[in-house]
């Protein structure tokens, strides 16, 4: 017999999180809720004298399957928005009515069927399950091995993307750039001054005029640059002359 407390505990931690499948907006929240459902089902298996299956449930479902779901969620982007536009009119209500109907049908069928008193429990530990898996059902286990290999190869084939063009090396990219007429030399760096060394101030050319292309294009679009005129040194040429004279002397 199963203790009523255990049953209601399992019922609460499976049914309530599974409602997240219907109401949670974000797919990651749904995945975490389903992980909780799987743990609850593992508890149910242990309560139903199937400890081996309970452990397999934890390992396969919460450990492998749901983590695979989370990986795929991260691959496709966790904030993929779900469109709420109905493509079939009234689909939401039809679906709700249908699923409530399925629940009512299943529950009434189980209710009408007569079951005798439960037989003496047979615990399904690893030692009890093994003779079945590798005795009566060994052919099924072998077939499942083939199925798993086929699935793994299928996943590889489905997610493999062949390269359409040969990979371009850095040298080829640079050669193409020069052939297209680009300046092979780097652009001037932004100005570095005693009072201001951020990227938004343009460098000054030998005449003292700002070089516009030394500032990042992005900053220019955002109007976050300074014009650089304030750093222009009016007396530079005179000072240079004086310095030259001192050097001579």
């Amino acid at each position: 017999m199963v203790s009523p407390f255990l049953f209601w505990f399992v019922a609460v931690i499976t049914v309530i999180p599974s409602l997240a499948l219907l109401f949670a907006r974000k797919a990651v929240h749904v995945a975490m809720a389903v992980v909780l459902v799987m743990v609850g089902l593992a508890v149910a298996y242990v309560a139903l004298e199937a400890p081996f299956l309970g452990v397999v449930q934890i390992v396969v479902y919460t450990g492998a399957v749901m983590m695979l779901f989370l990986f795929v969620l991260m691959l496709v982007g966790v904030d993929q928005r779900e469109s709420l536009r109905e493509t079939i009119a009234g689909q939401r209500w039809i679906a709700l009515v249908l699923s409530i109907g399925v629940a009512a049908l299943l529950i009434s069928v189980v209710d009408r069927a007569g079951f005798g008193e439960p037989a003496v429990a047979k615990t399904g530990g690893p030692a009890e399950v093994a003779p079945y898996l590798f005795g009566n059902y060994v052919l099924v286990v072998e077939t499942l091995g083939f199925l798993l290999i086929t699935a793994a190869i299928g996943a590889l084939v489905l997610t493999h993307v062949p390269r359409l063009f040969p990979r371009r090396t850095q040298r080829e990219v640079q050669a193409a750039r020069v052939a297209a007429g680009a300046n092979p030399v780097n652009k001037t760096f932004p100005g570095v001054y005693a009072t201001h060394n951020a990227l938004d101030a343009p460098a000054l050319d030998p005449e003292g005029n700002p070089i516009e292309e030394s500032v990042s294009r992005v900053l220019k679009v955002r109007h976050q640059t300074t014009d650089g005129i304030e750093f222009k040194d009016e007396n530079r040429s005179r000072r240079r002359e004086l310095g030259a004279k001192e050097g001579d002397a």
Partner: protein
Amino acid sequence: MSPINFVYLASVLFAIGAAAVLLRRNAIVAFMGVELMLNAANLTLVAFSRMHGVLEGQIMAFFVMVVAAAEVVVGLAIIIAVFRSRQTISLDEPTELKG
């Protein structure tokens, strides 16, 4: 408390999974609904196995788990392949097979 209560619980879970498949547009969430339905079926197998005092139901549930794991691998690979070509995982988008 009789193990038959777990069969009622499995019925409710199956209905919730079916509703998720019918309602949700996100392919991954709909797929999790399929997983929930498979698990509900597993729960009935284990509950009936307990009621009859035999282990065959548990063996059957184990096989269902293995098949479900293989199915998840291929299904998620298909979702990734669709996402690569269309940049979306909404179930409404791929309509090329429409008659």
